[in-house]
């Protein structure tokens, strides 16, 4: 059993300083792959280090299994950690690096040898066991760091941006291997990253953080489709979600319209009920819509608007058009890669309004049923 319970965790450096981590409250299930994601300085690493015992807890409690670990040194928490810069012992060979933790635990020599070789086989680093870390490439070093973690068979794996020093191709490969590793080990993984793609691809659940405060805890699908606020909506997803500022007006027929100075978009009944419930008629609102829910005219039935084409980004299979629709930021639209248009050409596009998200214009919170 390696569930982790984090109860109202706070971190402050100094008495009157700002909270680096603010009321972090979370239950992590056994064998879960949990990812903390957020911009740098959002407190995700600090939280991880508090779980590891590398950082003092200002307030709150951390339980690993049933045990309160607040005052337990890292070595007694039955955890393993992988660091961003690998943190391999430069004075020891790869073999010694992996065996170090077992040796300190006074395991018999033959068991250590067996465990090291097994870990090396899993991670395909057997040929390098006698080398020093400085003779290895980044990817190999990262494997050694993982080997050092898995060899101890801990209850919980903590990973602090382990892939951010690798090149893009290797990162994709290691991502898949980490997923496999998690499945085969059956341990709890807590993974910290600032890369939302890593979070989306690997996590069972994602914890999105900002300024030390949890913004949302949910599955990758839910975080993407129903973000709790504009921050989460903009942080998750690439390219970013589009935000359009406007006002809700009621048509004579009783339909609701999302109105900007340039265009009006009809709101489907479901969303209209939501807006009525929150009493938003006649008020300002932020509409969020992802690039894949906008397209050239003909795709969706109504809600046509016109935008002026500025630039496009080709991603291989898709092309993202940046259109000026009279807002501060351009509207990003996903189209097929073969789609071509002239600069400053006026394009008629449609939005799938059933996929549109509505956020409170002042607080940034998404309106929910």
């Amino acid at each position, binding site marked *: 059993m390696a569930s982790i319970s984090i109860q109202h965790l706070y971190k402050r450096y100094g008495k009157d300083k700002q909270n680096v981590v603010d009321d972090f409250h979370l239950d992590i299930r056994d064998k879960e792959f949990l990812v903390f994601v957020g911009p740098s300085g959002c407190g995700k690493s600090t939280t991880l280090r508090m779980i*590891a*015992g*590398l950082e003092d807890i200002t307030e709150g409690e951390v339980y690993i299994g049933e045990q309160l670990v607040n005052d337990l*040194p*890292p*070595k007694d928490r039955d*955890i*393993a*950690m992988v*660091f*961003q*810069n690998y*943190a*391999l*012992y*430069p*004075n020891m060979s790869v073999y010694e690096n992996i065996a*170090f*933790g077992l040796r*300190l*635990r006074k395991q018999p020599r033959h068991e250590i040898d067996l465990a090291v070789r097994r870990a090396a086989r899993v991670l395909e680093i057997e040929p390098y066991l006698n080398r020093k870390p400085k003779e290895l490439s980044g990817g190999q070093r990262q494997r050694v760091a993982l080997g*050092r973690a898995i060899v*101890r068979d801990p209850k919980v794996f903590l990973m602090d941006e382990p892939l951010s020093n690798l090149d893009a191709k290797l990162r994709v490969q290691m991502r898949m291997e980490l997923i496999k590793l998690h499945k085969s080990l059956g341990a709890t993984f807590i993974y910290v990253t600032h890369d939302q793609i890593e979070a989306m691809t690997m996590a069972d659940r994602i914890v999105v953080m900002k300024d030390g405060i949890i913004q949302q805890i949910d599955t990758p699908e839910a975080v993407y489709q129903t973000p709790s606020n504009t921050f989460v909506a903009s942080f998750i997803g690439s390219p970013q979600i589009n935000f359009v500022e406007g006002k809700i007006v009621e048509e004579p027929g009783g339909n609701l319209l999302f109105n900007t100075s340039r265009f009006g978009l009809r709101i489907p009944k479901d969303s209209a009920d939501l807006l009525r419930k929150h009493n938003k008629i006649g008020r300002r609102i932020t509409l969020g819509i992802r690039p894949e829910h906008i397209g050239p005219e003909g795709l969706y039935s109504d809600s046509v608007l016109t935008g002026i084409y500025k630039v496009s980004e080709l991603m291989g299979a898709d092309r993202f058009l940046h259109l000026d629709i009279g807002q501060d930021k351009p509207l990003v639209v996903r189209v097929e890669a073969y789609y071509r248009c002239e600069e400053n050409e006026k394009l008629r596009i449609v939005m799938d309004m059933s996929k549109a998200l509505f956020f409170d214009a002042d607080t940034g919170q998404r309106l929910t049923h």
Partner: protein
Amino acid sequence: MNALRSLLKLRRRPRLSAMDGFQKLLTLLLIVLSVFMLLPIVYIFNHAFKPYHELFLYPPTFFVQEPSLQNVNELLAVTARSTVPMIRYLFNSVFVSALAVLLVTGVSALCAFPLSKHRFPGAGFVFAAILLTLMFAPEVVQIPRYLVVSEIGIMNTYFAHLLPLMAMPIGVFLLKQFVDQIPDSLLEAARIDGASEFVVFLRIVVPVCMPAIATVAILAFQNSWGNIETSALFMLDDEMKSFAFFLSTLTNNLANNVAMQGAAAVASLIMFVPNLIVFVILQSKVIATMAHSGIK
């Protein structure tokens, strides 16, 4: 095959022809400078084997013309006459120097590690105090040192040789700068692996800092091997005094300045050789320290 050849070519050291004018000039300057630095060493070696008439030749010669062992014999004769055998002085020096190297490196490293990697109240003050002591000339602290040594009752013992040498501020400073560069995550990884603070120190910090420790060891050795102060101040009996002190007495207190010059020349060679040996053994590590700590 061609690929292999080009690889080998790439790995070859830059040749003289591959250097530009500035690099050539720099190389030449460094060669001249190193020859200049080498001169005293060559002189010491030659001087030791000059017979008397060459020792006082005017103008003095640099290289020995007729090498002889006359000076060695003279030194042996002097030591044969002295009440305490020379081997006793030598033992004192070797024993004290070996212990001093161990203690100084140990104390400096144990002091540098917490100063660099642990936060505790007064850490800044302690480090500032250590830096401050760097600025005192040794003569300034002679009297307080004497008072301390005599008050704690270790006069005329090996402890009195060792105690004043043990605290070497430059050693602490050098090691702290080096430990500063060890990434914290390395120590944290070890702690998570199950290492206690002492194990972290012994298995991670010390091996990683080996170059700096080698440098401190050399400094400590030189400090202790050439030390005559503790012998002069704290040692009452002759048999407790160091070899360096004994050699310094050869030419001191003599009415004329010709007698014993030969023995003194050999003595300086004997004093110098261990330094050279220690340095040659540890030099590659020392260069790494200089490169790391930004001192050079």
